[in-house]
Every structure is written in structure tokens, then in C-alpha cells.
């Protein structure tokens, strides 16, 4: 077996098929990065998987999953001002959590250098929005590089490190989902392990580091000067490059994934090179290299700004052209659709057709109708959340209000459960629920919150509910892990990324925060959970129900690894089944399949034999199958 570790630690130059996230880790190793921190979130968790592939003793840097993105950012900042090259990574909306400290970074002299890696998610593949974090670059005066391929991820991280160390300023490396997860053969350089200088070099003389009153302005001036220096530097680097197709009429300015899509779409006119627009591909997307852009504008009659999500480049380029009295026709967004979704090749073809109807050959896609509905993600067979939602739904009146939070349990909003009807962000549920409870004697309010999310952003809200005496029930969906992003440990797991540690039990946290009324049960005890929730919502004030069951995906995987997994299945006793269909329609474990004649059967590929379904059948027709058997005869 080829070990990822060997790719990450090879001394010689090499090439390997890897995803962008793994290429990033190799770049961290080569660059001499010393401290890395993160909070898990798609599309970035595989960065930590590549880090994990390197055993701790051989790992040339410190890594931790911090409790949230702000903590991770501050940790990386602290390391940097002590002289260590640091990096922090998280998903798009993670930057909102980190923002309070992140926006200060450009004011600071980062003596060790620091790279902020953001995994943006155009298309909202695994996020609650598709926010365009290029705005944050402008907001904070922190330059931003945007690679298009895994090879560029590797290269641009090294470039970001070089700029960051030279200017002692933070640099953002903006990845997007299909850059993080794209795979290709990437060429890496050699690696000579550095002798690190461990001396703590923090000194206020490198600062100032306290931006209060009169100090703010010299600090801001220095930040803006650095920003302009990076703009200057762009002209002498090849981060931005022109592909000259000798087209005097049309040019396109683009970046990242849209650039790749454009290249593919332009293949359609391969035989007619005269039509092929010239392309300016930006790698440094903020600040803009004005000189290069001006000359590109001047050389063309029309320039299309092909950018995913918002009109960040368009506004700046148009304002530049206005100032310079350039008459080139600049074509930007043409309607709301252009602001939405990932710029896949299909999308880019549509955008270009709107812009230049004569450019591409005739559309060849035909009308086709799909006879099946989408298949959104769902809770796994055996999932403790399913065993929670089933009785909780029974405990509540249908007019009661349930508030979702972020985690696998968010999926409870889908039919047939429809539990958790409103969602903002990590840790919002207690507080949104508190707001919903005001002037409300009619409809009970229940908020769901996962255990990892509780530590991430849930604590202030719980304190607030106690402090201000709000009237709602918090149901803590405790599965012992950060399940949705791939089973990262959290403070109640008893283990961090690097070692076993003393767990901080969820119940003790709640008690410590002053929650007086706490119920707790394993969710497989569905009747008990139902009674507890009935009791909790009928008492006034703030209380909590801990609905606990380990993540079964993680649990069964561990069992398989340890060899203790027993291949159990359930089956339907067709003699006893009277086709009430509670198993398929209400409990709805994906294992249960429905024939058109109403017969229910068990899909053995899916069943893990956990037996949580047995109690849901009114006629007790779900039974454990004989060993080695399963399914239905």
C-alpha cells in the first residue's frame, strides 16, 4: 500500500495523485510551517486527514483542532508573533466566527508569518450559504491568493508563505470545494527538514500590538502600505498570467474554478482559434494588479469579467476603467442567475451564451425528464438521532416550534421527521428558541444542539438562557463526536487530535453553567425519552434533555477495525406484519424498503442489526434474523 505519510514526508522531489487538501499539507511540510490549527468543516476536513497520516512523532509541526475557528485563528496568531510560521484553516462560514480577531490581523506585525486557508463553498454543497469570502479580503486588507488546481494549491501556499514572511503580514489562501477535492498528479519539490528555533521571540517592540486610540492609525497605515506593496509585487510575479489567443476584440478576466471551466468550454471552438478570447487568469485576486488589468483592457474592445458568486472584480475593474477613461466595454454580471451557484462548465457555457451569443456552437443538450426524486443525505441506519426524533415528535404537539442547529441532526428537518424548522448558524438554536419563547404561552419551544457545536458556539447561549430565565427546552443531541465532518474528537470525547485527555462531560458543563433541570437518556430507550421530553416541555423555565447515543457509523467502523463487529440483521416476520408501515413511513430507517403491494422488506446491504427499530413496530413484526441470514424469505 502506498502510504500518504510517505508522500507528505518524502525528502526527494516526487509526484503523486492527490486531492488539493493533501497537496496543501505537503506544502506546509516543505515550507517549514510550525503551528497549524483548525475547526472541522467541509470542504477542509481532509486537510486534517492528511496531517493525521503523519504520525505525531514525525509530524514537523504542531496541529490541533481548536474548539472553534476564532480560537484557532487566535492560536495561530499567537504562534506567529512568537516567530513561528503558522496556518489556520476552516470552512467558508467559519470565517464569520473567526472574524472578530481575523479583521485585526493586518494591523499586526506577524513576525513568523501566517497563512489563513479558507474553504469556500460556491454551490453550497455542504454549507448554509455560499458566501463570497473575497469581501473579507477587502474588508481586512489581507491579500488573497486563489488556486484553481491541486498543483496550484501546493504552489500558491508556498507563495503565500514567502509573501507573508517577507511582509510579516497574513495572507489568505482561498480554496473552493472543487479545488479542495479535485485530484490530479501533483509535482512536489524536495524537503529538507529545518532546524527550528524554539526561542519565544515575542516582543512588544515588534508592535505595537495594542490597537487603542492613537495606535490604530499608524497600524492601519502600515497595513495599507503592505497591501500596496503586494499589489506592486504582483507585477513581477507570475501569479497572474495572460493567455494570448491573438484576439483583439474579446478578452476574459477570470480566476480559480471558473477559469478551468472556461478552458473546457472553449474546447468546443477548438478548430476556430480566431474566435477564442484572450484570457487573463488572476491568481492574486486581491489586491488587483492594476497595471496588468489596464493593459489587458486597453488591448481589447470587450472584456468579460467571468467571476463566481459576487461582483467583486467587476466593481473594482469598472472603477479602474472609469478613472483611466478607458472605453473598452466591460461585461459583468447579467442578472441574478450570474450571482448564484458554482461556475461549473455547464454554468460557464450558459453565462457566456448570455454575454456573447455568437461565441459558442449551438447548445446541444436535449430535454430529458428524470423520473426519480433527489436523494438528499439522511441519517444512517442505527443513527441515535433517528431514535431521538421519533419519540420527540410524539411528545410534542404539532404546533410546537422546533429549532434546528448545525450537525447531522439538522437532517431531522427532512420528511418524515420534520423536526428542527429554522436554522441560522452554529450554536444559534438556544437563542433563536429563546426569542421564539417571548410572549408565547401557546406553543412550546424546543431547541436542538449537538455536543461538538455546544462547545463551539453553544455555551454563551446556554448561559444566556439561564441568566435571563428563558422558557424553552434544549435537547442536546450527544453522539460523542463531530460526526458530520468525519468524526473529529471534541472536548467531551476524552481525546484530542494528538492524545488522550480528560473528557469535559456535557452534563457537567450544563450543570456548571447553572442549568438546574437536566434529563438524560440513551435515545434507543425511546419511551423513556418521550416521557422526559413531555415532562421537560411542560415545566417552565430553561431545562435540558441530553439525548445520547454514540454515532453508529463511527461505532461500527471501530468495531470492524477491532474485529469485534457482529454481522447482525433484522428481518420482517411477514406472518406478523399487517402493513401499518410505521417502520418505513415514520421511523423511516433507510433499511426498510416498500414493495408496491405494501410488503416491507429489509435491505441487508444497509441494515447494521442495531435493533433500534424493533420497538417501533406496533405488531412486533421486526425481529432479529437468524445468524448468517437476514432479509426476508
Amino acid at each position, binding site marked *: *500500500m*502506498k502510504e500518504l505519510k510517505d508522500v507528505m514526508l518524502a525528502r526527494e522531489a516526487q509526484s503523486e*495523485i492527490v486531492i488539493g487538501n493533501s497537496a496543501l499539507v505537503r506544502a506546509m511540510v516543505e515550507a517549514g510551517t510550525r503551528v497549524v490549527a483548525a475547526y472541522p468543516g*467541509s*470542504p477542509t*476536513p*481532509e486537510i486534517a486527514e492528511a496531517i493525521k497520516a503523519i504520525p505525531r512523532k514525525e509530524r514537523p509541526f504542531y496541529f490541533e483542532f481548536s474548539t472553534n475557528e476564532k480560537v484557532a485563528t487566535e492560536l495561530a496568531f499567537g504562534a506567529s508573533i512568537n516567530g513561528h510560521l503558522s496556518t489556520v484553516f476552516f470552512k467558508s462560514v467559519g470565517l464569520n466566527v473567526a472574524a472578530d480577531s481575523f479583521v485585526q490581523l493586518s494591523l499586526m506585525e506577524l513576525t513568523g508569518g501566517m497563512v489563513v486557508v479558507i474553504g469556500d463553498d460556491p454551490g453550497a*454543497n*455542504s454549507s448554509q450559504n455560499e458566501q463570497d469570502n473575497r469581501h473579507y479580503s477587502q474588508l481586512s486588507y489581507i491579500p488573497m491568493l486563489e488556486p484553481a488546481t491541486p498543483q496550484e494549491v501546493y504552489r500558491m501556499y508556498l507563495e503565500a508563505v514567502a509573501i507573508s514572511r517577507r511582509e510579516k503580514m497574513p495572507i489568505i489562501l482561498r480554496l473552493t470545494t*472543487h479545488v*479542495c*477535492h*479535485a*485530484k*490530479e*498528479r501533483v509535482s512536489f519539490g524536495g524537503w529538507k527538514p529545518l532546524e527550528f528555533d524554539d526561542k519565544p521571540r515575542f516582543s512588544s517592540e515588534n508592535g505595537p500590538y495594542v490597537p487603542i486610540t492613537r495606535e490604530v492609525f499608524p497600524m492601519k497605515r502600515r497595513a495599507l502600505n503592505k497591501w500596496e506593496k503586494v499589489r506592486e509585487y504582483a507585477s513581477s510575479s507570475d501569479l497572474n498570467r495572460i493567455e494570448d489567443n491573438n484576439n483583439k476584440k474579446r478578452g476574459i478576466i477570470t480566476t480559480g*474554478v471558473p477559469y*478551468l*471551466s472556461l*478552458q*473546457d468550454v472553449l474546447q468546443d471552438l477548438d478548430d476556430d482559434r480566431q474566435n477564442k478570447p484572450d484570457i487573463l487568469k488572476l491568481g492574486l485576486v486581491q489586491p488587483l494588479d492594476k497595471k496588468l488589468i489596464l493593459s489587458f483592457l486597453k488591448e481589447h474592445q470587450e472584456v468579460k469579467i467571468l467571476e463566481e458568486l459576487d461582483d467583486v472584480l467587476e466593481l473594482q475593474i469598472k472603477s479602474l476603467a472609469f478613472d483611466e477613461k478607458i472605453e473598452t466595454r466591460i461585461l459583468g454580471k447579467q442578472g441574478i442567475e450570474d450571482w448564484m451557484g458554482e461556475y*461549473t*462548465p*455547464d454554468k460557464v*457555457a450558459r453565462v457566456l451564451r448570455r454575454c456573447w451569443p455568437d461565441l459558442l456552437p449551438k447548445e*446541444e*443538450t*436535449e430535454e*430529458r425528464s*428524470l*423520473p*426519480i*426524486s*433527489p*436523494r*438528499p*443525505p*439522511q*441519517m*444512517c441506519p442505527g443513527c441515535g438521532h433517528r431514535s431521538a426524533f421519533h419519540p420527540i415528535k410524539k411528545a410534542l404537539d404539532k404546533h410546537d416550534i422546533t429549532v434546528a442547529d448545525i450537525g447531522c441532526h439538522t*437532517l431531522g428537518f*427532512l*420528511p*418524515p421527521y420534520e423536526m428542527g424548522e429554522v436554522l441560522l448558524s452554529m450554536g444559534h438554536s438556544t437563542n433563536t428558541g429563546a426569542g421564539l419563547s417571548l410572549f408565547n404561552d401557546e406553543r412550546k419551544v424546543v431547541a436542538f444542539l449537538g455536543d461538538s457545536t455546544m462547545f463551539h458556539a453553544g455555551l454563551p447561549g446556554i448561559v444566556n438562557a439561564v441568566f435571563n430565565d428563558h422558557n424553552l427546552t434544549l435537547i442536546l443531541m450527544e453522539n460523542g463526536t463531530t460526526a*458530520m*465532518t468525519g468524526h473529529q474528537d471534541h472536548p467531551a470525547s476524552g481525546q484530542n487530535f494528538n492524545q488522550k485527555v480528560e473528557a469535559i462531560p456535557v452534563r457537567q458543563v450544563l450543570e456548571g453553567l447553572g442549568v438546574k433541570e437536566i434529563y438524560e437518556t440513551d435515545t434507543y430507550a425511546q419511551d423513556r425519552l418521550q416521557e422526559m421530553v413531555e415532562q421537560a416541555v411542560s415545566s417552565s423555565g430553561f431545562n435540558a434533555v441530553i439525548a445520547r447515543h454514540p454515532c453508529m*457509523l463511527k461505532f461500527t467502523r471501530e468495531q470492524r477495525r477491532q474485529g469485534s463487529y457482529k454481522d447482525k440483521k433484522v428481518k420482517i416476520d411477514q406472518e406478523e406484519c399487517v402493513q401499518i*408501515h410505521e417502520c*418505513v*413511513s415514520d421511523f*423511516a430507517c*433507510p433499511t*426498510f*424498503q*416498500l*414493495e408496491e403491494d405494501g410488503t416491507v422488506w429489509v*435491505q*441487508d*446491504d*444497509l441494515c447494521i442489526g442495531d435493533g433500534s427499530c424493533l420497538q417501533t413496530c406496533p405488531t412486533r413484526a421486526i425481529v432479529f434474523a437468524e445468524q448468517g441470514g437476514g432479509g426476508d424469505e
Partner: protein
Amino acid sequence: MSRTQTIRNNKLDLYLIGVGGQGIGMLSEILIRAADYAGYPVRGVDTHGLAQRGGMVVSNLRLGPKTFTPLIREQQADMVIALERNEALRGMITHLKRGGELVYYDTSWQTLAARLGQEEDITADRIVAEADKLDVSVERVFKEDLEDARMQNMVLIGHLADKERIPGTKPEDYRQAINDLMRGSMLEANMMLFDSLVNQG
């Protein structure tokens, strides 16, 4: 120019589709490495993250020098390789080109709508009927005596290798890929299954 040569000079787009948990990641990783061993420039991208939890998952795999993005365009894939019957239908309709090839493993994991009785169940015959409308050739793959459902992906791999469905990519290329990605008893079991599937002809 032979078909292999034509593809080597252009592109071959393979659109892989299945349900989260079926092992599409491993399927895609073996294919990309086997094609790499066979000398193709390769590029790909998989679904990661939450979508893997029992939802539809896809992997785009693009072979040949004339590709830039890893993303395959709608109705332009040369081949759809599916791990599940319902998703085979979906992949064919959304991404397969007219006259393309569909290879699928015939297990059925019903969609929620089918389980709630709101939508008709998709049968193997229905796949063929829909394929005919698009001049698509269908290869249904199924192994009656397969004990471990987690090895359905390997049954598909064995089929693709045995029939040389990726032109110029030989069983030995697949074996190297499998050796790169697995070890211990998992490697042993999968290699034994693979060998039993490619040595028949």
C-alpha cells in the same frame, strides 16, 4: 486510428454515481490510479462531506489530455458507472451522452419517496427502457453469491477490467492500483475477488 488511440489523444469522461456509504470513493480511486498506470493523464473530483451520509454521491473521472476542469458536463459523459439501480437511472439521464454506455451494479436502495410510496420503484427493465430512448448500451452487473455488500464496488472493477472498458487499461494496471490502496485482509479479500472476476475469459 484505433479507438484506444483516439481516446488517448482526446478524452474519456467517466461519471460515477451511487449512494453515500457504497464505496464510491474507493471505486473512483482505483479507476483513476489504474488509468494512470495505463498512461492516461487523469483528473477527477468526488463528493465529500455531509452528502456522503446516505445521499447521492458522484465522482467525476476524466482521462486524456484534453481536459481542464475535473467536472464533467451534463449529457456529455462517455460512460456512467453506477453502484445502485436508482442512481444508475439518474446518472444516465443527467450526465450520459446519447449513445453512451451505462455499467451498473444492480442493487436497489430505494429513495425516500419510493419508501414512502410516493414514487414508483425503479426496476432493471425500466433502466433498459429508459436507456433505449437515449441509444445507451446497458451492462447490468450483479454477483449472486457476494457475501459482503461492501465489495460490490470491486465486482464492478472486476467487470470493467475484464471487459477492458477503459481502453488500454489492463487487469495488471488495476492490480497495481488495488495494491496501492489496500493492505492486509482487505487487500487479500478484494484481490481474490478481483482475480476471480478477470480470469474467467
